């Protein structure tokens, strides 16, 4: 008989191994999925994981890794703080949109003035926009005990409508011949989040993501606030006795994740995307949830997980072009990864025992 025995302490070895096992399991299941779609599974997996890094056109795809990975890491770092404390911000996608709107809004307001101060102002505005949008569920939770999962998620749909309204109305390019979408910030030097080293994909968002990783690592390991976050997640009762104020923690965790998501949106709109348009958001806010869990809510893990997830995005695009693999297949693939990860987590906390239980 197979039973589960709770481990006295979570296994460190399994905690490190589960993401790898989950990725392998997803590759196998994903291969089966691709096979049922009539594609050669080995070819598809190779195209997704190998082609972007070492294939013929890798020089083009490698920079993309940074471009796609930066927003994922930036958002996931913020989410991981809350997830550790049991505060569930599911609306990063909305905060990402609002950050892009406020960031681009400041830039567009200055058009066509050129000054070095404009870009820093846009960065601040982007972070502020995301922070403010995340403060809605945070304040409602602390004041009225409203469920932050549902409120932050509802606000994603509100933000999407706001984005549509802005790109069709207030922020529409007056010289755009009536097409929806704002002016292209890539053509506005002071507001352009350009590549820092040409041809590498390295832009300010990548720098911000790396800084966020370092800050979050220091916060969680060397700072009282980080300790309180971990304590609340791992032993809520002990946290209560230790005098942790839940309201402060909620405001901090949601605010920080909102600000980081807003930053990600701002760097995206002023750089790779270039303009505010109806289809600006592509689901980074939701994929970042997978990234956060895949990285075990640990800053360094999230960095690696963000790179891996960016790889599946780019590889998925290539597979779409070369093999005709539908883009939705990649979405399923990413969802599968989260499933395996959560299910395999069992092995961290429990041990599988075979045989009859002893009589107590």
């Amino acid at each position, binding site marked *: 008989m197979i*039973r*589960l*025995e*709770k481990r006295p302490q979570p296994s460190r070895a399994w905690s490190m191994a589960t993401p790898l096992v989950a990725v392998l399991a997803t590759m196998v299941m994903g291969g089966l999925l691709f096979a049922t*779609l009539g594609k050669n599974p080995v070819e598809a997996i190779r195209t997704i994981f190998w082609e972007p890094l070492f294939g013929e056109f890798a020089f083009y795809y490698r920079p993309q890794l940074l471009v796609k990975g930066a927003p994922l890491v930036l958002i996931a770092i913020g989410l991981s703080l809350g997830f550790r404390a049991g505060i*569930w911000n*599911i609306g990063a996608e909305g905060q990402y949109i609002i950050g892009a709107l406020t960031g681009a809004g400041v830039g567009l307001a200055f058009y066509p003035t050129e000054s070095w101060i404009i870009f820093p102002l846009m960065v601040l505005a982007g972070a502020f926009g995301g922070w403010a949008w995340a403060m*809605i569920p945070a304040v*409602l939770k602390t004041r*009225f*005990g*409203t*469920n932050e*999962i*549902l*409120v932050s*998620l*509802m*606000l*994603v*749909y*509100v933000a999407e*409508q*706001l984005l*549509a*309204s802005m790109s*069709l*109305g207030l922020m529409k390019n007056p010289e755009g011949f009536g097409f929806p979408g704002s002016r292209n910030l890539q053509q506005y030097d002071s507001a352009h989040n350009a590549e820092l080293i040409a041809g590498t994909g390295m832009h300010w968002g990548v720098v911000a993501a790396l800084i966020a990783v370092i800050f979050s690592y220091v916060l969680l390991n060397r700072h009282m606030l980080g300790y309180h976050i971990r304590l609340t997640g791992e032993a809520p009762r002990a946290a209560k006795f230790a005098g942790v104020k839940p309201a402060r923690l909620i405001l901090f965790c949601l605010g920080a994740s909102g600000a980081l998501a807003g930053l990600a949106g701002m760097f995206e709109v002023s750089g790779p995307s270039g303009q505010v348009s109806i289809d600006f958001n592509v689901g980074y806010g*939701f994929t970042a*949830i*997978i990234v956060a*869990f895949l990285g075990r809510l640990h800053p360094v893990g999230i960095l690696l997980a963000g790179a891996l997830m960016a790889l599946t995005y780019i590889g998925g695009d290539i597979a779409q072009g070369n093999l005709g693999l*539908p*883009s*939705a*297949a*990649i*979405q*399923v*693939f*990413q*969802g*599968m990864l*989260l*499933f395996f990860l*959560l*299910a*395999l*987590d*069992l092995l961290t*906390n*429990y041990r599988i025992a075979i045989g009859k*239980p002893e009589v107590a």
Partner: protein
Amino acid sequence: MDLSAINPVLLIASLMVAATPLLLAAIGELVVEKSGVLNLGVEGMMIVGAIAGFAAAVETGSPLLGFVAAAIAGALLSLLFVIMTQVALANQVASGLALTLFGLGLSALMGQKYVGVKPPQMGRIDIPVLSDLPVFGRILFGHDVVLYFGIALTAAVWAVLKYSRVGLILRAVGENHDAAHALGYKVVKIRTLAILFGGACAGLGGAYISLIRVPQWTEGMTAGIGWIALALVVFASWKPWRALLGAYLFGGVTVVQLNLQAAGVAIPVEYLAMSPYLITILVLVILSADKSSAPASLGRSFHASR
């Protein structure tokens, strides 16, 4: 702006149609939460139900078979949630999110062939005399079967929860799983059945959107209805009849804003389209002060060998 173009009788009739997917999903989730499980995957199960029902209806030509397929598909997807949370004891919040992300991707993959296809029409029940009554005839009679099924299901769930032994056991498991386990009830088995029921209901709700309310297939067409259904359960404070009331209220908001859009009110379309989500938040704020009626074991994992 021409508000006189809005016909109140048609408004109420279409309100009932708009409310049905919400009601079906919310009643299912209500039973799940009564058993002490929080399944945040409603949106995912709904959208998979929507495409499974749509595909089955198009292939067989029978909308009813479509609904059966949708219920099965929803239950199958919720089986994944059972494996995650009841067998592998994974975090329920994270697993529910995974279910939604996975369901959205899966539905997009399944639905590729069906974009732009017209589904077979579901016949309305026409009772010769009653349906022809002025005003009430159109509102009360002359809807499709599934709409009445939704109301009947609400009544059934209410009666089972309140008066039957099964309902009592379900509530016991949801209030205190350790005590229920000590009394000899199979906590995991009961929760599994509740989750499967919730999945089937969400699937039905999804198919109602793709087969009757819209009716066509587009990616991501549930547009947050699954999440509103989750909010509705809180709104209803876990009581079936209040879920019905809430569903009609939200259906009303949706229909009224659509009618205002069509009538060309001076408010921009995007702001009208936001309103159901904003009202959901507002309602959550008003009602979340009172959490006393929530099942006490909601969202907690159960493992027997302790």
